């Protein structure tokens, strides 16, 4: 079967089709997405410990998304997950759908395996060669990102999710302050977070946000001291170290 652009190389339709071909994501956003997702992988490994300690499993995206539902869909659903996972500096606010009926919150299972004799080539490269030219990142507002959350959300009936929502919201205040270059507000928000969630399941993420805020305030010695505490903590994995290096410089973090 020939493609339309081969059969109709010129004309209105061909113009439209050529305009829709190709395209590469902004490299910086792709990198941030990778960091955030790897953070989810790392956080997932810590979740069982948190659960054992009776802490709400806020590191589980389903709980986080459920929490977003519990907050009346005005929660920053994507940030809620990103808070767990990454230093991605973006806040996503969704203004809410017209409704969140049950039928829209269940994620129908996507195909787990190809049903035919022609399996998907899982590691196929996209047919278009990557373009190295940097592009300007899109602004952080993203109704569609919340749509993703809505697509996988469950009903807001899980009490643990509500606890998670409170913790996420508290930490998100701090993150937003850092991103808005209000480090003093961020530290205050983190103090409030620590007081309210002394054994929070997002404590490491909070520590990272605090370190960034301290650097922004010019208190590098305290930032370094807290970085040492963080890297000495159990289950301190390479992801945290990598993020600390970006905040403090590679020389400061072993």
């Amino acid at each position, binding site marked *: 079967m020939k493609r339309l652009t081969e059969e109709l190389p010129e*004309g209105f339709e061909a113009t439209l089709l050529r305009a829709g071909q190709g395209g590469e994501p902004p490299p910086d956003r792709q990198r941030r997405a990778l960091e955030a997702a790897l953070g989810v992988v790392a956080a997932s490994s810590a979740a069982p410990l948190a659960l054992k300690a009776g802490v709400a499993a806020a590191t589980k995206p389903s709980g986080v998304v459920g929490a977003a539902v519990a907050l009346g869909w005005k929660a920053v659903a994507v940030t809620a997950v*990103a808070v767990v996972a990454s230093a991605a500096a973006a806040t996503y606010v969704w203004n809410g759908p017209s409704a969140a009926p049950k039928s829209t919150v269940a994620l129908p299972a996507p195909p787990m395996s190809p049903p035919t004799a022609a399996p998907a080539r*899982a590691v196929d490269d996209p047919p278009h060669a990557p373009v190295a030219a940097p592009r300007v990142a*899109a602004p952080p507002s993203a*109704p569609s990102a919340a*749509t993703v959350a809505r697509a996988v959300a469950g009903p807001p009936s899980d009490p643990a999710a509500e606890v998670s929502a409170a913790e996420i919201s508290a930490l998100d205040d701090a993150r937003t302050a850092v991103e808005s270059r209000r480090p003093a507000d961020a530290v205050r928000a983190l103090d409030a977070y620590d007081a309210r969630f002394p054994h929070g399941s997002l404590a490491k993420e909070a520590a990272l946000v605090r370190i960034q805020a301290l650097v922004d305030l010019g208190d590098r010695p305290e930032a370094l001291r807290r970085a040492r505490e963080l890297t000495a903590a159990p289950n301190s994995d390479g992801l945290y170290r990598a993020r600390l290096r970006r905040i403090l410089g590679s020389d400061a973090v072993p």
Partner: protein
Amino acid sequence: MSPPSSDTQQRFREMFDAHYPFIWRQLRRLGVPDEGVDDAAQELFMIAARRMGDIRVGAERAFLFGVARRVAADARRSRAVRPVAAGGVPDEQADAGPNPEQALGNQRARKILGQVLDEMQDDTREAFVLFELEQLSKSEVAAVLGVPEGTAASRLRRARDEFMAIAQRTKARLGIPLGTAS
């Protein structure tokens, strides 16, 4: 879900590198607004990161596309409730001119393409996008959609007819002379 091992992380990394650009493009083509594509792609892969244990080796792209198509469907529904001026493309009146390539800048063409795709049926749109825009083979389209190859071929034929009909209507609506652009 068992704790992810370094193998899981490695596998995720490979999946991400192999498919992030693909998924990013499909989200954009299937109806997620441009300003939300980056965030939607990020969230989608965060979901995938958590569900690695559920994704069969070799079926990663189909899994990711399965999530992407639902995300895009939500985005289209969300846009559908907004008031739209009669004609559907109020700001896309093309400049009069004999050459559609000149009349439509690439950005405008992509926007109009999005509107044409919006009018297509879900199943035909997905097949069309994968074949005509992503330029996958017919068997690859079938694998990504999780349908037999014959079904994919049938959808592609219907998709082509549908696309051509909608494109013609759109062209007339935009005031591009039919004789010069077909």
